[in-house]
């Protein structure tokens, strides 16, 4: 019993978070920055934060995560971090030679109140920024939001610093994919490609955080959204923002800054959300959906019908990020499963309402909580009170899964102990098929384990 001290009586807590369902903003900003080609994420604060964020991302992606830090010491926290950032900028351009430095703050530099644009300006005036190179920034105090809002902040910074409008539309559609895996970004590009649509995806971490082993190490691989594409985003015909939490802000800024109209959709996870994504893409780009995409869709529906029996009525507990959870919950409901305990550490008023809306057809109460006082301890307690058949969430769920003896499908961030998420998508129809496969395998493996011998079945 790894979590032996978790007891079922729920006591309302006001101050103590136990087993958080989120982490802090800077790590999201760091992840997003990897989606820019030739970009060095820079953490302005003490080196510990950067070390932690690099370690966590490394453990999740099993890839080099190269990011720098201002390495504050006591002095910097008293006198401000300007001197540290100035020398960091000089060192980074000299030693690593990136095209862009993407600075994010930590709770320390935020509390001190360091003004990043002013420092970056000073660096430029002092000749520390080689010509053609850029410094962008976003503010990511960790006592606000979560890793998801930090991600959103850096995506917004990409628009803020780069997007320009020349007044001439370039016929391209911007897609802001949200906090998804490199494999998902790849899949979104593939779908747009199948539809013959010219698109710019940003950020785009495919090829950056799921790279090959070649005997060479390239700190900046030929992947990620190039600065030129980010600049051209201001001339696109429209923007699809996938996910209200991770992508909407950037899309709205692009709309107000460059008059690129936007639509905010859910992450294309599961049948209905993917349908909406494809349909919208078709409409904004003025194309038709090709047979190949319809074929994939049909395959997904086929799998659902083949295996519906094993999904029907199964109770599920979920933990993760809001954009992910909204789409996942909708998918589960559409499979006639029962997502009944749902927790996200990321705050946001609309979350609980949306989940309630999606799960209304279940005709039963659903536990849902988000924000600072939602954590996995609470989720565990809910499960002790009403058991589930399946847990979907990040690797930390494995403690609960083991103690409760419930199958777990790993999804979200971080996944530290299983491969696949970097390489195989869960978005789109193909992604939905993979998710289904994982869910069914978990449930059926469990059934095979538990069935008495006389019902142990060869054909399912």
């Amino acid at each position: 019993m790894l979590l032996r001290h978790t007891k079922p009586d729920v006591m309302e807590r006001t101050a103590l978070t136990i087993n958080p369902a989120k982490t802090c903003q800077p790590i999201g900003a760091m992840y997003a920055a990897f989606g820019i080609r030739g970009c060095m994420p820079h953490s302005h604060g003490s080196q510990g934060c950067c070390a932690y964020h690099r370690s966590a991302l490394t453990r999740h992606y099993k890839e080099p995560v190269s990011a720098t830090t201002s390495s504050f010491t006591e002095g910097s926290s008293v006198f401000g971090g300007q001197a540290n950032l100035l020398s960091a900028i000089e060192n980074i351009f000299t030693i690593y030679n990136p095209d862009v430095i993407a600075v994010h703050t930590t709770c320390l530099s935020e509390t001190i109140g360091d003004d990043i644009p002013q420092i970056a300006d000073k660096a430029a005036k002092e000749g520390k920024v080689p010509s053609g190179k850029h410094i962008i920034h976003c503010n990511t105090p960790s006592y606000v939001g979560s890793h998801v809002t930090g991600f959103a902040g850096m995506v917004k910074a990409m628009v803020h610093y780069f997007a320009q409008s020349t007044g001439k539309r370039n016929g391209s559609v911007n897609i802001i994919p949200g906090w998804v895996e490199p494999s998902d970004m790849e899949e979104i590009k593939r779908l747009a490609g199948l539809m013959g649509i010219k698109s710019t995806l940003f950020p785009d971490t495919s090829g950056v955080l799921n790279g090959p082993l070649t005997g060479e190490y390239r700190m900046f691989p030929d992947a990620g959204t190039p600065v030129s594409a980010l600049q051209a985003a201001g001339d696109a015909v429209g923007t699809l923002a996938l996910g209200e939490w991770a992508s909407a802000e950037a899309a709205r800024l692009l709309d107000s800054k460059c008059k690129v109209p936007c639509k905010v959709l859910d992450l294309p996870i599961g049948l209905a959300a993917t349908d909406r994504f494809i349909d919208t893409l078709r409409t904004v780009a003025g194309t038709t959906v090709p047979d190949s995409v319809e074929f994939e869709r049909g395959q997904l529906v086929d799998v659902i019908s083949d295996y519906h029996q094993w999904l029907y009525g199964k109770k599920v507990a979920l933990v993760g990020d809001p954009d992910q959870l909204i789409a996942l919950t909708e998918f589960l409901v559409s499979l006639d499963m029962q997502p009944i305990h749902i927790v996200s550490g990321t705050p946001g008023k609309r979350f609980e309402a949306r989940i309630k809306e999606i799960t209304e057809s279940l005709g039963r109460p659903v536990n849902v909580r988000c924000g600072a006082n939602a954590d996995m301890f609470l989720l565990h307690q809910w499960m002790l009170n009403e058991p589930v058949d399946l847990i979907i969430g990040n690797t930390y769920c494995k403690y609960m899964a083991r103690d409760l003896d419930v199958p777990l499908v790993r999804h979200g961030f971080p996944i530290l102990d299983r491969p696949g998420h970097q390489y195989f998508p869960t978005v789109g129809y193909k992604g939905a098929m993979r998710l289904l496969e994982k869910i069914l395998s978990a449930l059926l493996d469990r059934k095979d384990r538990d069935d008495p011998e006389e019902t142990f079945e060869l054909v399912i």
Partner: protein
Amino acid sequence: MSVIKKKSGALPDPEKVKSEILAKYPPKVARKRAKQIVTTAPDMETPPEIMANVRTIPGIMTMRGCTYAGCKGVILGPTRDIVNITHGPIGCGFYSWLTRRNQTRPATPESENFMTYCFSTDMQDENIIFGGEKKLRAAIQEAYDLFRPKAIAVFSTCPVGLIGDDVHAISREMKEKLGINVFAFSCEGYKGVSQSAGHHIANNQIFTHVVGKDDTAPEGRFRITMLGEYNIGGDAFEIERLLEKCGITLVATFSGNSTYDQFARAHTADLCTVMCHRSINYVADMLETKYGIPWIKVNFIGAKATAKSLRRIAAYFEDKELIDRVERVIAEEMPAVEAAREAVLPRTTGKTAMLFVGGSRAHHYQELFKEMGMKTLSAGYEFGHRDDYEGRRVIPDIKVDADSRNIEEIEVSADEKRFRARKTGEQLRRLESEGVSFKEYEGLMADMKDNPAAVIDDLNQYEAEKLVEAYRPDIFCAGIKEKFSIQKLGIPMKQLHSYDSGGPYAGFTGAVNFYKEIDRLVNSKVFAYAKAPWQKNPELSATYVWE
């Protein structure tokens, strides 16, 4: 890297490698790094001076973490029955939520074990603006109501230090109110220059608030403590097994597989043994001053080192029965080790390694490599101080700079009731003359005279890459952040902070595990796949013809 490319097996001159590395840096950075990269030579009498424990250069991709990580993660992390509350925004607590780095084994299924939990005050905006003391107080109360632990510890993160929450006063207040031990650590990440400061803060507080609270000595004639052992990958379990087999009683481990009660009784031991010199040597000194317990440096990494350490412990107690028993245990354990060693030797002899880890590990693991006929080409510490490199004799010469000054040093004196000199001065001198040296550590460089490359403090990613390019070691050892950039270069990489979920590597069983693991890595086929057949031979010399 043209100058230093390896020619026909000869290793490049380390001084040349060094200057190539430095050439890329802005002058100020180069000047500083030049003092942190030194070369050793077989004929050196005393090791050269190295600059260590100084600030990391901003913008340099350092391997280091922070004070909080050293305090909460390293020292308190492996203690299972204290509820550790991180006071700060959520991130710090989240990241120090343990993975399998430290293991623990509660006595019964019901025993307290909080290691898999992560507790945080998850500070929000308003707590930063109006102060977080109220929230901390409430969090301690909630933790108490839910778990009824015997102790609660509070860890400050960067913003807490800035806004000035008095974590110590609140802990005192809650200790009073709840009747359990509550104590706090001012281990804000910006203090000090690395994890090392955090170890210091943690150890000082454990020493002040816990050690000496329980005078009941566990049974046993030969009672020792194990300091600086963190039960990474189950190392402590192996050491515990060995000590038990030898009839030696382990009073407390600081801090692997440890408990609150162990800390509280630590002063009842008769000998302290120090594994990781860096993280804890000062605690050994304090235990000696306050309670009269002498200390010796030991090393349980490597079969020979383990045998040597067991013999030194036995020698200290000057008991024939114990000495014989230790010999019997060694004789019993060694055949399996020798068999495993011989099995791998043909495949590992002559291979090379590089080691860049924490405190003493970059030194200790060289023993294991030596046993496999492997040479360590280059090594350094992530957060060592000069004494860890050059030996304790330099301690008096180490300059105290601003960053070390703000880490509290505690003054201890002999405890009136509990001080008991375990050995007379005469006994100590006799033991010394028989080879049991007390309070002694020669440092890493003494053992690296014959190694052809540099000793580097606070290595960074760029330098690691250059070193690997120049020397192409057969294996590189560091932490998770370094793992994949090294592997992309086609060199296997072994983590020595968390063991990549391997281990234990301590003691005799550990040595066997390590031999097998390194054999697997340095002889792995995987890295040969990096190039596709057509990349190895791009010239099109013939074509297949389909008929």
